[in-house]
């Protein structure tokens, strides 16, 4: 049975109601309520500079689920029901050469994925990463097998790549606890369906050449000279002179 919007907004995922959480986000300037009653994230959506996206599947809705529901409506006290079946097969390339090789292979795997620099992710200890997005643990296990075999057969990657299965976003586990203990209710699903109608999403600008430039810059700074594969062997910066200390 469907609850009225007022009842749904009164749900208390943490210590406060969803209505109160949203009110606080608006008051603090992190969320905007438009005159038509829709909500949108405050400020300009930053250009996405770290990730190349492989759109081999339907959109995920992370903009709504993670950036609106989790951060604002649930005030990071609950994982959105819409994320309940989200699993990821995470690949950890060691060099830019491996990252690009894995990304190229991923374009031919029927699964949505993203590839790029993971350094700015405070929940990751990896330099580079690729994430395949899968619905359900069994599907993740099936995809893991495909990815492991496909990557192992590639001479630039081989059988030693670190590949793991994780559930949802790392922020969720950091805030809520281990992902095998997440709790979801039918009311959450109803609330999310209701608030989806009131969420206005602005897409961030995306330029592939910007991402490619960031990849090369980052590899250079980390001393990962495999970036030379993509520049015709030309160094991004010349080495500066050094002087004998004596």
């Amino acid at each position: 049975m469907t609850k009225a919007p007022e009842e749904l907004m009164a749900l208390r995922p943490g210590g406060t109601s969803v209505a109160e959480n949203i009110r606080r986000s608006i008051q603090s300037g992190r969320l905007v309520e438009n005159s038509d009653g829709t909500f949108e994230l405050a400020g300009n959506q930053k250009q996405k500079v770290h990730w190349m996206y492989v759109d081999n599947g339907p959109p995920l809705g992370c903009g709504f689920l993670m950036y609106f529901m989790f951060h604002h409506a649930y005030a990071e006290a609950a994982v959105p029901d819409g994320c309940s079946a989200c699993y990821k097969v995470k690949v950890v390339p060691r060099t830019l050469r491996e990252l690009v090789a894995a990304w190229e292979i991923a374009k031919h795997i029927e699964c949505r994925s993203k590839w790029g620099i993971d350094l700015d992710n405070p929940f990751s200890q990896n330099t580079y990463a690729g994430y395949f997005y899968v619905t359900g643990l069994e599907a993740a296990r099936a995809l893991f097998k495909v990815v492991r075999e496909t990557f192992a057969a590639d001479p630039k990657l081989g059988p030693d790549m670190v590949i793991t299965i994780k559930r949802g976003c790392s922020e969720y586990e950091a805030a809520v606890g281990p992902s095998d203990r997440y709790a979801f209710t039918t009311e959450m699903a109803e609330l999310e369906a209701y608030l989806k109608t009131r969420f206005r999403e602005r897409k961030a600008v995306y330029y592939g050449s910007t991402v490619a430039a960031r990849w090369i810059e980052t590899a250079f700074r980390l001393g990962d000279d495999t970036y030379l594969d993509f520049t015709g062997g030309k160094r991004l910066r010349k080495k500066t002179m050094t002087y004998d200390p004596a």
Partner: protein
Amino acid sequence: MMVRRQGDWLTAKVGDELLMMSTQKVNYIGLTEVGLRIWEIIETAQPVENICAQLLKEYNIPPEACRAEVDAFLDELVEHGAAAVDLPPAG
């Protein structure tokens, strides 16, 4: 109008993405296939007309569209300090 390269740049291809990166500053320019070809053509200083004539030989595009694309790309190169356009002497 003569076009010549300026500064030290490298070209890179990452997957399908083409770009130029400055080796002297943190600066890059996204490239199309035609943009990359123009960059190759101006390895030695060239009149703009020569660039268009070369592209018309290689690509099936109308001359006006070609000139517009060349002008737009050269503007971008000049804006980023990657090329200079020398105007003919006055008079």
